[in-house]
């Protein structure tokens, strides 16, 4: 995302998310469920949502897509596309929050 000029150099803000404080994600048999203290609700997670939550520490969206691509053997672009709506769902459910951890020169 082209955001600003710093010292005359265009920079990109990397969208990165962390799990919101107190969020719990638990495997129940073959399924995944999360508890959101923000809403007090329990949510059923699909595989993509659970995978993303597990990989939040890896880095930003692109980095996570890269890890999943390497793990599954699928093209990065395909993985990234399949994750498009996941971020919104996780954020809307109160499970993750966006952080801006520095700008990367473009």
């Amino acid at each position, binding site marked *: 995302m082209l955001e600003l000029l710093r010292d005359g150099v265009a920079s990109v803000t990397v969208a990165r998310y962390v799990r919101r404080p*107190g969020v*719990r*994600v*638990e*495997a*129940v*048999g*073959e*399924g995944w*469920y999360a*508890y959101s*203290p923000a809403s*007090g*609700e*329990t949510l*059923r997670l699909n595989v993509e949502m*659970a995978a993303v*939550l*597990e990989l939040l520490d890896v880095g930003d969206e692109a980095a996570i897509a890269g890890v999943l691509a390497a793990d599954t053997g699928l093209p990065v672009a395909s993985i990234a596309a399949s994750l498009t709506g996941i971020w919104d769902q996780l954020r809307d459910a109160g499970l993750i929050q966006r952080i801006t951890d520095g700008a990367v020169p473009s």
Partner: protein
Amino acid sequence: MPDSSSASRTALSLREAAAPALAGALAGEGLWLDLGALRLRVRSDSAVFARQLRQVYPLFELDTGGGWTDIQVRMVRARGLRRWVAPQVFFEGDGERVFDPFPGDSPLPHFEWGTNWLVGRRMNHLLLFHAGAVERDGLALLLPAMPGSGKSTLTAALSLRGWRLLSDEFGAWDPERGGFVSVLKPVALKNESIDVIEAFAPGAPIGPRFPKTRKGTVAHLAADERAWAGRHAVAAPGAVILPRWQAGAETQLVPLAPEDVFPALAFNAFNYGVLGEVAFDAALRLARGCPAWRLVYSRLDEAVAALERVWSGLGRRGEAAAASVPMRGLA
């Protein structure tokens, strides 16, 4: 919380008490019904209500001694000219009239629904699964289900075959004690299930039938001595059955995986959202720890027999049966 030190009787039961004594208690300071997990104070000026209450709470004590009260209820006859033309009775929960009145000859179903509503709203130290619950060998069999699934019918049938009734409506999980507790009230039977239970156990103590309620015809099966005497006992988690009555179906018991059990618990509780993480932990523990089956049935005797076989074959029962299942979670 009620004193759980003794299950022995300290007063006459409602069945033993003289009718005027019961009516007088209800019209005066009230009657305290010890349901196990809670004490309910009820007052009423309706002689009809006194009669009906006695029929379906026969073993409960004529307790007029006051003390701890979790919920206060009054069944009050409507005033004015209406009481001569078309008598009605109001349900007051903790001083509030939150429902439309009922016909004056049918206060009992109103009382039962109203108190269930209050329990679901007020007893938030317990996680209240929408489930029947019975106990055997110290372990609870939980029957979570949606209305119309035959949950109450099955719960009633099990209670008539030696299982201890905890409730047909509330699987009441006590997080502090790690077990299920009683919310002991009569089992509410609806429509065909009344005849089914009468055929299943001729002579079962079923109270009067109330036709034309908003749920059709209802009647109530009184709790037995085992249920009353054990109402303060805690039942450890045993097994979970998801019942489904289906016309003409062969009896089927299909084992369920934890991922199938968890939503049946977490998304089918009265106050899950109120308890938050405590409820999440309880549902996790039960889904992971209890063996579970889906029961499809049309013939009650077969269904009960199937559950008896499952129970006797559990071996290492309840949570112990699944204790070796690793608990996974994302840190």
